[in-house]
Each structure stands twice: as structure tokens, then as C-alpha cells.
């Protein structure tokens, strides 16, 4: 028996009736869409926007197919509670930081690699201690073979403006946002010129400078052959033996040394103004109070705040809570901000 649409119709079987209804669905759908072409167009536009737009439409599902280019490496569990007790405040700080980065990564479709920085045996007796960063970056690069840029973030950082994507903040105008010469800002008084530097080389490492030198609390590194070489040469027993007593900041100082002495490092390194990815709270770099290049400015909606050194003498928990509340209130007050940029 056939019904008016020509489908086989068996009144006795319920399942066959349901099957028929299902079979009719695509044609029905098509008919509806064609009748309401505007609806179709709107749906298509919204779909495209959600797929292709960088900072997604809020509350709309995103398909992060293209953004696996960026990986955020978040260093947590520094010390692993071995040298210092990890109390409820430390746990709370860690939770806040991780939640903040997770929300940011989800919003923009970036990968988030949460890396454990507990004290490991192979770093015992000061051997390579504080050079773990290098090993972790190498490991993460292996874990995300398709990603291009890796953004290292220390635990005591907070992304204040989650609506801003990395592309917008840094990469869309990479040459404008970074500087390669130390002429204008040279807080460490490193040699401004050394021979054999190639200034047209691709930028593979983007590092901010704070009041005391390079700051590796928030920096970007690109996957490349140059980076493989850097990650290999960064720790060397001869360098370590001769300088580890003077190098308070370990791999940071090692990088500063290599930058001053080896031209190929200079060729691939660019600096970024600190307030673009690494603003300081008032407590850090206290001697330079008032310096507009260093400190977090909420009126200008700085991107990230790095509470560097808060575990020595300041209150990490208090600062983290303060910035968390501040960020929430800023998001509420100026929801139009990302569109005005």
C-alpha cells in the first residue's frame, strides 16, 4: 500500500511508520529551508562565523579546527610541595590560574598544556635546576607536533582580557609589536651591537624585558630548527660550571649571556614591550614605580598580569584574588571593549 507521497505504508507496523517519517525528513527539511531562504542564509552566516572567526561569538559552539597553531604551556606545581608546604592558599592560587587559562584556551581554540614542574630527581643537587623550563618546552613541542607557537606562562599569571586573541595581541602585526634592537630600552646594559647578526632572520623567540632583564614568565617560542638548537645549547655544563653561582635566574641569565655573545641567537630573538604580554603588579620591580612600560594599567586594558616574585615577600593569594575580581569587573563594565579595538 502506498500513501500520497508514494512511500510504502503498512498500517500494521509502528516501526515502519516511524521509518517512513524519518525518510521524509530530509525532503521536508530541504523544503523548509528553501521556503525560508533568509533563514538559511542566516544559519550559514552564523555557522561560518563560528567556524572561521577568531574570537568566537559568545555562547555559540566553536569548531577550533585552525587554532591548534597555538599552545599555552602553563607551569604548575612549582616545586611540588617538596621544599615548601603547599597550603590551601597555594592550592587556591593554582586553581584560579588554571581555570583562567583553561577558559581562555577554550574560548580561542588554543591548546593548553599544563606541565608539572615538581622537583625531579634528575635535577637534584642543583644540577640543571631551574633549567626544567627548557626540557618542558621540548617535551611539549613533541606532544603537539602540529602547533607552531608556544606561549609559556608561569603559574602566577592572570589573563585579564580573555576576549583578546594572541593573533590580535601579538601576531597580526608582529613586526610592529616587537623590537629587535636594544638601543631604546636596554635595562641590562647588554652590548647593543655585536658582529654577524642577521636582522632579517625569522623571529623565533619573543621575550619581554622587565626592569632587571629578560623575563621568562610569559614569552613565546616558535617551532623551528633554530629553536631546536637553542633548546639544546641552553644548558651546557661548561656554562653552568663557570656561572651558575652568578646566575640567580638560571636559564634566564643563560639566555641573556647567549644573547650577548652569540650572533645567531640575536638573529632569531625579538623583544616585546612588557605590557603587551607581561604586565607587572605594583609590587614587582618596586624601584621603578611609575614607569609606564612596566606596570599593569587597567584603563588601557593590559592583556596579562604576571605577579612575578610574589612568593618572596608578597601575598600571591591576595594578588591573584585581586586581579581575578578586577578582571571580572572589567569584563562586565566594558563588554564592548574587544569590538572597539
Amino acid at each position, binding site marked *: 500500500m502506498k500513501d500520497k507521497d508514494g512511500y510504502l505504508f503498512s498500517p500494521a507496523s509502528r516501526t515502519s511508520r516511524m521509518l517512513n517519517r524519518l525518510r521524509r525528513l530530509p525532503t521536508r527539511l530541504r523544503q523548509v529551508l528553501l521556503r525560508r531562504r533568509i533563514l538559511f542564509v542566516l544559519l550559514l552566516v552564523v555557522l561560518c562565523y563560528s567556524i572561521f572567526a577568531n574570537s568566537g561569538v559568545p555562547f555559540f559552539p566553536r569548531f577550533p579546527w585552525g587554532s591548534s597553531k597555538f599552545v599555552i604551556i602553563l607551569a604548575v606545581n612549582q616545586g611540588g610541595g617538596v621544599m615548601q608546604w603547599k597550603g590551601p592558599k597555594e592550592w587556591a592560587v593554582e586553581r584560579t590560574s588554571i581555570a583562567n587559562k583553561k577558559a581562555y584556551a577554550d574560548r580561542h581554540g588554543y591548546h593548553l598544556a599544563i606541565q608539572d614542574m615538581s622537583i625531579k630527581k634528575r635535577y637534584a643537587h642543583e644540577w640543571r635546576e631551574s633549567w626544567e623550563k627548557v626540557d618542558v618546552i621540548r617535551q611539549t613541542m613533541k606532544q603537539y607536533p602540529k602547533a607552531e607557537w608556544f606561549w609559556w606562562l608561569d603559574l602566577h599569571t592572570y589573563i585579564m582580557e580573555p576576549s583578546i586573541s594572541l593573533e590580535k595581541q601579538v601576531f597580526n602585526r608582529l613586526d610592529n609589536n616587537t623590537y629587535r634592537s636594544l638601543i631604546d630600552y636596554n635595562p641590562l646594559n647588554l652590548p647593543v651591537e655585536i658582529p654577524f647578526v642577521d636582522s632579517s632572520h625569522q623571529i623565533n623567540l619573543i621575550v619581554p624585558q622587565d626592569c632587571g632583564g629578560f623575563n621568562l614568565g610569559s614569552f613565546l617560542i616558535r617551532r623551528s630548527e633554530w629553536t631546536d638548537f637553542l633548546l639544546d645549547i641552553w644548558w651546557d655544563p661548561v656554562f653552568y660550571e663557570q656561572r651558575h653561582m652568578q646566575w640567580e635566574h638560571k636559564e634566564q641569565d643563560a639566555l641573556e649571556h647567549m644573547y650577548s655573545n*652569540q650572533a645567531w641567537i640575536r638573529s632569531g630573538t625579538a623583544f616585546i614591550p612588557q605590557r603587551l604580554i607581561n604586565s607587572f603588579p605594583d609590587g614587582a620591580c618596586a624601584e621603578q614605580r611609575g614607569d609606564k612600560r612596566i606596570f599593569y594599567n587597567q584603563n588601557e586594558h593590559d592583556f596579562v598580569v604576571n605577579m612575578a616574585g610574589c612568593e618572596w615577600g608578597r601575598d600571591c593569594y591576595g594578588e591573584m584574588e585581586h586581579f581575578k575580581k578586577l578582571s571580572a569587573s572589567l569584563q562586565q563594565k566594558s563588554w564592548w571593549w574587544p569590538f572597539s579595538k
Partner: protein
Amino acid sequence: MHFSIPSRSAHQTTLPGSPSFKAKSRASPHRTGYAPSLFARLRSLILHAAPSTQSSTAPEKKRQSSRRTTLSVLVIVVFAVAAVLLTIMYVLFGNIATLDPTGPHVVLVLGLDNTKYKDDYLAKIVENRKEYADAHGYGLYVRYVSDFKNLVHDVTKQGWLKLPLMRSAMQENPGSTYFWYLDQNAIIMNPNLDIESHITDVKRLNSLVLRDVPVVPPDSTIRTYRHVPADRMKFIIAQDHEGFQTGSFILKNEEYSRYVLDAWFDKLYQEYKFQKDEKGALEHLAQWHPTVLSKIAIIPQRIFNAYPNGVGESMYQDGDFVASLSGCDTPERSCLREFERLWDNRGRVVN
């Protein structure tokens, strides 16, 4: 709503982005510019997929399909022309990556020490190199090593000076591929051999590379790699019974070489007082940093660094490429005397 019937002239002038291209009336015929937009194409797909709702009229279909065929023909033609052009460019200019062939393929690098040696001696060395370079179309980069004295930590250790010299040579010859550093106290005894077929050609290099040999003879733990293919080797050097012999080595003009030269020349290595100066520093680098070791090719010493007074494997024999007087500036030996003996016996270019 904007409504217009496409005409021949409209094809040429109406572009997809132009203001007149707005048409979305239901009653309008399938209207496109010369290259239909994504939306219009989708729209036509839908129209054709559901014939019950709206069917285009027959002449419309014909015009559409003829337009589509012309479009596809045009696309094919464009791609064909592009393909032909690209192949021509490839054939003419060879490897696209080196579209800048402004330099000789190989550059000989020579550093002269005019504080310890007389000018006529140095002139003979330069003549020897020049004869070789001219015969094979290679470049020759000659500098006084004293130019680089302010870059080294300890000016009495002359061995370090060859590193900024090589770096400078590479910087000033960006179009060249291979850089062969040969010590001043060495003579090219057989200038009829060319670098490519004698050393750097991939198959030849593959046959020469010593695999699984200790980096520091006789028995260091770290040994050279067994399976790295020769085409990835960028640093060709020989070893004598003591270790790396830096009197003669070849570097390829790549990121790796700049990295190795700069890292090797680091101030902290110079200050460390290795027993064998820069040779010791290179051995250290090779043992501690796999990114350095993986691209080092150790080849037999007689290939380009034979010792006339050497023993066994390293002993110079007639017909060998280079005779090296390395270590001749010790009191027991005399560079000039050994040089004179070899100079008279050297081979000349056979035309």
C-alpha cells in the same frame, strides 16, 4: 529590489563585488557576474536540487551551462599557463630555493698570520690557493687573522681566530654553499681534485663518513651516529690520533653552521682553558649537544688533511689532496724547511 537581466556587456563590467551585484529577487533569472559568487553558486545548486519549487527555464539553463563551461575552460587555461610558466622557471633557474646564485659554489677560506711569517711565504700560500680556486671556479676569501684579534679572549691562542674568520666568510658570501677552511700551513698538493667529487657529493660523502667512531679517540663514550644519512651532514672534519683536527674542515652555509660557529666561539668556552683550545671546545660541544653531533661527518684524515710526517692512516702519500704542516711551529720542527720540500713536489693543475 534590484533586478536586472544579464547581458553580454554586463559580463565584462559586472564584478562580484560591485554595488550592482545585489540581486536576490525570487523571480529573477539566475544572475551572475563573470565569476559567480559562492552564494549564487549555492543558490543555483539548491534550485537545481529541488526542481519542485523553482525550475529555471530551459533557455536559462542553456545560458547558464554555456557560461559555466566557458568559465571552467578559462580556469583550465589559466592553470595550464601557470603550470607552463612555472616549469620554465624551474628549468631555467634550477632549484627555486637558490634563486640567488650570486656566488661560487665553494669558497676557500684562508687566514694569514703576518706577525710570525714573512710576506713571501704567505704569498706562496695564497698563490697555491688561488691556482686551485681558479682551476675549479671556486671563491677565495683571504683575511689577516689579526683582524679578529679583538674578538678573542686570549690572543695567544691563535686557534680560535679561525672561527670568526669563517663566520665572516659566510656572511660575505651568502650565495655560496660550501666553505672550506684550510690552515695557512698546508699545501694543496693535488689541485686536480675538485671538492664535490672528492668530498661533498652525497654518495661520495656517504662512502667516506666514519660511523660509530669515538668522538675523542681512543675510547670516548659518545660515538658518531650510525644511521644519519650523508645528505644531512653539514660539518665535514677529520680526526687525528688526538681528536678533531680543525686545520681543515668544511661547513655548509646554513643555520646550523652559524649556530655551531657562534656557540663554539662563546666567551665561556674560550675562558674555560680547554687543554686543546678550540679543538677541545668542539669535542665538548659534540659530546654534550646532539644537535651539533648529528650533523658532523668525520672523514678519514688523508682525504683533506694528511700529515707528511704522520704515521699510519694519517701519513701523506703522493697523490693525496692536501699536505698539512699542522704543528710545525714547535721548536723541533721548522715550518719553512718542511714547506720548501713540499712546495717543490706539489702537483700543478693539468689543463
